[in-house]
């Protein structure tokens, strides 16, 4: 009889383990230490080894690696969030055929230099996001097909640019203007391409076949070279001040 009762108790224990109870809980209920509990559980399972289901459940429970408490460390569950990462960047992302997303950040250090130079508080300076269509252009800062300009708040850090054209390459600057109204770029973005909307007519590009992992060279050369956003032209090309430059400072116009 005693044996039978013992058997029922352990059978129930196994069932409870299957249902997700922990060994620690059950050991406590039975007034056993965990070591005793495990020993007697193993003995029981040896007796009933003909019953694989129970054995599997216990084996599975034994695999539970940790008590949950060790994970109760606040440093694992930090939910703070930062929008500022102390870096200078302007990033463009493509949302759809006519919409881009821009986000940006200016380092405090750069802000300070700009404020000093323009002799103005950051929040008093005018700021703009300029989006250039640079499709097939070696962009030098001035030769975009088109420029969209948006005034932004000094503390703004992202912007959706709508109503752009599909199948075009875009680049953006975020910057301010000089007293005379000329744009001064503070940040420059990557180049992105809006997806094409229309099908490309068959006659616009040569039809060409290749085999797997080795596309033909003809096609490769037809692939447009990525537009480099950065000009390597030297300053003499674009600056009116260079003619009046005497080496260290500017010779100002007579009427100045």
């Amino acid at each position, binding site marked *: 009889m005693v044996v039978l009762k013992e058997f029922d108790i352990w059978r129930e224990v196994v069932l409870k383990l299957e*249902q*997700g109870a922990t060994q620690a809980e059950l050991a406590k209920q039975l007034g056993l230490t965990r070591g005793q509990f495990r020993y007697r559980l193993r003995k029981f399972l040896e007796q009933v080894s003909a019953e694989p*289901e129970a054995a*599997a459940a216990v084996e599975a429970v034994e*695999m539970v*690696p*940790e008590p*949950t408490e060790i*994970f109760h460390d606040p440093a*694992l*569950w930090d939910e*703070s*969030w930062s929008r500022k*990462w102390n870096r200078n960047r302007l*990033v463009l*992302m*493509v*949302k759809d*055929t006519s919409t881009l*997303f821009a986000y940006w950040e200016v380092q405090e*250090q*750069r802000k300070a*230099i700009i404020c000093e*130079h323009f002799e103005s508080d950051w929040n008093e300076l005018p700021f703009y996001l300029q989006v250039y269509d640079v499709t097939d252009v070696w962009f*030098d*800062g001035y030769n975009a097909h088109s420029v969209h300009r948006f005034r932004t708040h000094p503390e703004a850090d992202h912007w959706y640019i709508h109503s752009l054209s599909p199948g075009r390459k875009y680049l953006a600057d975020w910057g301010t203007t000089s007293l005379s109204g*000329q744009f*001064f*770029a503070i940040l*420059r973005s990557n180049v992105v391409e809006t*997806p*094409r*909307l229309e*099908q*490309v*007519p*068959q006659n616009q*590009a*040569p*039809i*060409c076949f*290749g*085999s*797997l*992992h080795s*596309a*033909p060279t003809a*096609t*490769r050369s037809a*692939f447009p070279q990525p537009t480099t956003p950065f000009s*390597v032209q030297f*300053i003499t090309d*674009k*600056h*009116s001040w260079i003619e009046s430059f*005497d*080496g*260290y400072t500017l*010779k*100002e116009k007579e009427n100045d």
Partner: protein
Amino acid sequence: MEKGYLALVLHAHLPYVRHPESEHVLEERWLFEAITETYMPLIQMMQRLVEDGTDFRLTMSLTPTLLSMLNDPLLKTRYLNHITRCIELAEKEMERTAGTPFHRLAEEYYHKFSLIRDAFREKEILQSFREFVQLGKLELITSAATHAFLPFVMTEEAIYAQLMTAIELHERHFNQRPRGIWLPECGYRPGLDRLLKKCGLEYFFIDSHGLKQSKPGPVFGGYSPVLTPEGIAAFARDPGSSEQVWSSKTGYPGDVDYREYYRDIGYDLDFETIRPFIHPDGIRIHTGMKYYRITGQNEHKEPYNPDWAREKAALHAGHFLDERIRQVLEQKEKMGRSPVVVAPFDAELFGHWWYEGPMWMDFLLRKIHYDQDVIQTITPSEYLTLYSDYQVCELGFSSWGRGGYSDVWLRGENDWIYPALHHCEQQMVHLANKIQDPSPAEERACNQAARELMLAQSSDWAFIMDNKTMVDYAVKRTKHHVNRFQRLVRMIGHGQIDDEWLSKLERLNPIFPDINYRHYRSEHAISRVQPSDRPKVLMLSWEFPPLTIGGLSRHVYDLSRYLVRQGWEVHVITTETGNAPHTEEIEGVHVHRVHVLKPDGGEFIHWVLQLNLMMIDACHTLFDAGHRFDLIHAHDWMVTYAAKTLKHEWGLPLVSTIHATEHGRNNGIHTDLQRKISHIEWQLTYESSRIILCSQYMKREVEQIFSLPPDKSDVIPNGVDPDQLRVFREGNPADQEPYAADGESIILFVGRLVREKGVHTLIDAAPQILAEIPEAKFVIVGSGPLMDELNNKVREQCLQEKVLLTGFIPDHERNRLLRLAKVAVFPSLYEPFGIVALEAMAACTPVVVSEVGGLGDVVDHERNGRKMWPGNPDSLADQVIQTLKNPEQAQQMAQTALSELSRYDWNQIARMTIETYLKVWKPGSREQSIVTSGERV
């Protein structure tokens, strides 16, 4: 023989959800429900087909996150607990529904759950998949490691890491590399193919519009894969097959006889009955037991009838097949090849959302096998062996998300995650490049950082935020992973890895046990600087050869290379020019030329700001590469912002050379611009620990203008390169053509044609000189803004025959003239130093110079040359006439001047400069800069 093919592709994916910290995280049920309703039924379906000898081909992408969860001991245990609870619930339901129409359904659920539990225990899910692969029925492919939406991963390194981690995990589980990949959300962007190729992948899938807009258009429509320019095959989704299976409205799953997903007893039963089987907090959940069929559009639902549903599934399978046959027959004709219809679906649609899905597929595969011979199922790999070539097309950006691009993952609800994610990936790349030789703890921390980053990148979080259910969970997950990543980066940066915390995190997220953070390394190794014992100076100069506008360029060039000869390491930061490389080493000097961003405000003063911003960036790059400097040496006001900023950032001593002042150049300050420049000059002197000036004259000027304490500056004359001077003494003097005729005496001026150089004084003196010395010929070498004005002056005085303005001429011609000249005249109004006078001396040519600035220091009247009053034509004429009339005396003075030139030897100047450096170079300042700047990652 079959005329075409059907490629059925099931994309099986769940985000990594594993919460050892709690037993009751609802999101873990995503996995449990998918196992019960999708993965096990699909396995059972394939098992039946194999047992019955029905041939079929199926392609499945098992994402690395799902693979990891299916193989996770904790989750397997929890799943067993979960399915056991389901069985219990079904048992209770059998009792509760006795005598009702639902009893049979409850019974079916009971059997279904029990069978699944047995099968789950009997054989690992992954083992079942392995066996179907071995039988050749199933092709398994991979996906990005954590299902990142690759078009929004910023760096190629991070994309590569996502791909390689996935491939390696796949290989570990299935003993073979995947040949294809399911790009998460079918997100493709140009250039991705290069990385796929690098990882050895052969094909991927895109949505149909992505192919339609390819360039050129696809000649076979969507019925053949195309190759990207890198030679990777892209299979396009067939829109027709998708619509019929996907759409809950017009597609099969919306049929009235199919099971209604939203009527679950977890919601329908009274609270007390269901309470033990829902969340302990009393949150009602889907139990998986659903008793109703869709019935119709409105709320009223009829009981589910399994027989009817089964009939419908068979009917729909037939319909689907007929449509495909129609397509294939039509296309076969057009193409002259066997078309392939690609039908990809989310695996979880089958069974979980569309309960009868696995049954439908069972019917479909049987019908294909037994009932017709037009179509055969095929895997993409098999199809790619059918033909030796495919059309090559450029593919643009596309995805299979709403709208076809990235509307789902980029909107107000989720756009805030990208600044952080992009920053983290760049940090990770930096870390991987930097940590070359990790300690065991660093290795673990870097690998865990890679795990946390990848987990944060899962497209699922942005998707859930867009979907607006369980948003909190997605937000928290993003924050947790990013913050854990940041903490790891800080620990690694500070060299203080909290081992206990790290091992907790490793146990919390033990995904990808073999992850290798080195996959984040850049393709082109970024060279890390080895620390050296040589003292190291950062030289800031706005010009450097070949860019030469004033004398500064040459000066910095010579000073730098002579400092190198004296054992210093010199890095010059300067402006880019022409085709000169952005980085090069010239005679041991490291030159870094920066690109100056435009638009730059259109004025020189703003261009200078832009130059400084770029210089600071360039210096940060040097710092990141491991360069540590002992001091900064700035030249003139143009580099003030950069010098000041870096001095403070790195805590380094600053030495400046003031070559000239705005005040001196303009003989006072007259405009706002001059005032601004003068202020910037003052600032440079104020920020500098020591100032170097080229003459006593300049020292007086700078001390006076900027109220500089006398003991803050050192006078070091400008140097002259002995090699350069030697040129003037070698070889024979050639004839005077084309500058002067035989018998004429050349009176030479060399310099920029600007007011301060005083050329006009020379022209004004010409008539007087000619009166005494008719054979005199004035040769004026140089260009500048006064060129036109001077030409006019010459014409007005009818001196065209006697005065020649050469404009710019090459160095060797200039040197020849210096030797030919009978006298060289430097009538400057303002001249901080006047190096060209030394060159004339080196050529052993007598000189006449203004008693001004540095020139006054160089010439001792009537000992080594003659002096004149600045701006005074009479005085100039007088001295020139004296020189020409007394050639022997003049030659003697020239000899004296030549013999004293060693004072200006660059070796000597460099030594004096180093003495100045040593006055401010604090021992240990280099270390200081490391501490104050922290790790820039």
